């Protein structure tokens, strides 16, 4: 979980794409997944997701994300299958309609979740926020909020682990508990975590302020984010994908 959001350095085609193009690609894949009503097209989109991961050289990460989503997907699939009443029964209370809808719902979920996680793996957060500010003219404070939120995820996890270790040292059997039991044991820890996070956030704000947070303008970023032919190609691909989703 800890490294799920961490940047994987590299120089692949996907790495070199303009951050804005990557976001566009993510949005288009999501849009296409919701527009289309064909199971086969959704399978195709899943293949596109996988392909992006492979081209970016983060096949392991792609597989891990996919596996993580699969657990939720199985649960959702069963729920959908058991609750759908329409269509002709295939087996017990399961209908052909139910299977089809469940398949589509689950595929949609996976297809929609994957690109964002992949883009975060191959884009530096600073590049993402700087590009948002420079190219899309997003106000800097919003971009800062986004980057800080993502930067804090591993930190929160570290802190949570620390609090749990401290509790384990005082006899709380975190290591023996599983599933819901463990979750209920973790709940009381949210208060200390929240308090320390709020304090930390305030200090981070102060730290940003003394390093010229308010002086930053749209063009302050050192790096520039020009669009290349690869970006153009990706955009064309995105549009084709979208057209496909609408027509098919």
């Amino acid at each position, binding site marked *: 979980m800890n490294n799920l959001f961490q940047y994987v350095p590299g120089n692949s085609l996907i790495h070199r794409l303009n951050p804005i193009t990557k976001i566009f690609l993510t949005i288009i894949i999501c849009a296409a997944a919701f527009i289309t009503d064909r199971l086969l097209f959704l399978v195709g989109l899943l293949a596109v997701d996988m392909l992006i991961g492979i081209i970016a050289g983060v096949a392991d990460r792609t597989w891990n994300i996919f596996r993580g989503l699969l657990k939720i997907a199985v649960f959702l699939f069963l729920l959908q299958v058991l609750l759908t009443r329409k269509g002709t029964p295939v087996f017990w209370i399961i209908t052909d309609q139910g299977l089809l809808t469940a398949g589509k719902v689950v595929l949609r979920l996976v297809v929609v979740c994957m690109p964002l996680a992949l883009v975060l793996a191959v884009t530096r*957060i600073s590049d993402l926020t700087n590009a948002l500010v420079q190219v899309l003219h997003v106000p800097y404070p919003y971009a800062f909020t986004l980057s800080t939120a993502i930067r804090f995820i591993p930190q929160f996890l570290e802190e949570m682990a620390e609090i749990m270790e401290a509790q384990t040292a005082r006899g709380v059997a975190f290591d023996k508990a599983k599933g819901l039991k463990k979750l209920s044991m973790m709940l009381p820890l949210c208060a200390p975590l929240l308090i320390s996070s709020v304090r930390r956030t305030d200090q981070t704000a102060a730290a940003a*302020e*003394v390093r010229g947070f308010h002086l*930053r303008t749209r063009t302050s970023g*050192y790096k520039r984010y020009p669009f290349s032919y690869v970006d153009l190609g990706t955009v064309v691909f995105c549009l084709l994908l979208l057209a496909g989703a609408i027509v098919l």
Partner: protein
Amino acid sequence: MIQIQDLSFTYKGEKKPALQEINLSVPEGGFLGIIGPAGAGKTTLARVLTGMIPHHYPGNFYGSARVKGLDTVDTSINDLSRLVGMVFQDVESQIISPMVEDELLYGLENFGVSREEIPARIEEALQSVGISELRERSIASLSGGQRQKVAIASIIALKPRILVLDEPTGELDPRSSRQVFSLLKVLNEEQGITIVLIEQKIMLLCEFTKQLAVLSEGRIVRQGETREVLARAEELQELGVNCPRVTTLSRILSARTGEEQPVCINTEEAEAMIRRLIP
């Protein structure tokens, strides 16, 4: 360079003042060490110097604090931050980027350092704390000590005229701590940067600082040339501030020999003193 007069400060919502009747002056090119027990108001004093108090942390502010002639209450945090750089005690909260290089870039970009100058500044700052090889690493993959060095580098890169450091060697091993102190000495002597250093490592403070101030319960109880302050070691002990062993040694020897021995602040001086007394 720094002039604080009759300063008292109480954080909003608190009853007890964090600082009381502080009078402090640091000349340009000075190197002031601040020591004191926990809760003495050291961090609050540092916040006053950077303008975070009263701009970020509100409260009752009496007296005045001037940095290079600018009143910290009237001057915006932006203008002050061009002059004063601060390294925070809690490194985790100071670092705002997920990557080392971006962390150094942040301040440089904000202060409008020219594009041509930026790469050299980053390289120079990383080199001065000895972490050039960490440039492309993510912050999450670094150790506490390495993060501390990144935080220091990110401030040094901005080339402030005054550098305020709040326990910058808290997570560093003895060797790295000495390295940081040596670096501060170089910045102080070669670039004339005024340094205010809050630390608990008394031995290093004695060796490197020019002036020393002892803070206790919000008040400055001793201040002056480092050697002068140390000469009254018994009083420091009472306040809960440890003295370096060499200083204790010269005090004991003064009592035993019946004549006043010079205050030693490093092992070389102590050695010379002992050689003199034992022919």
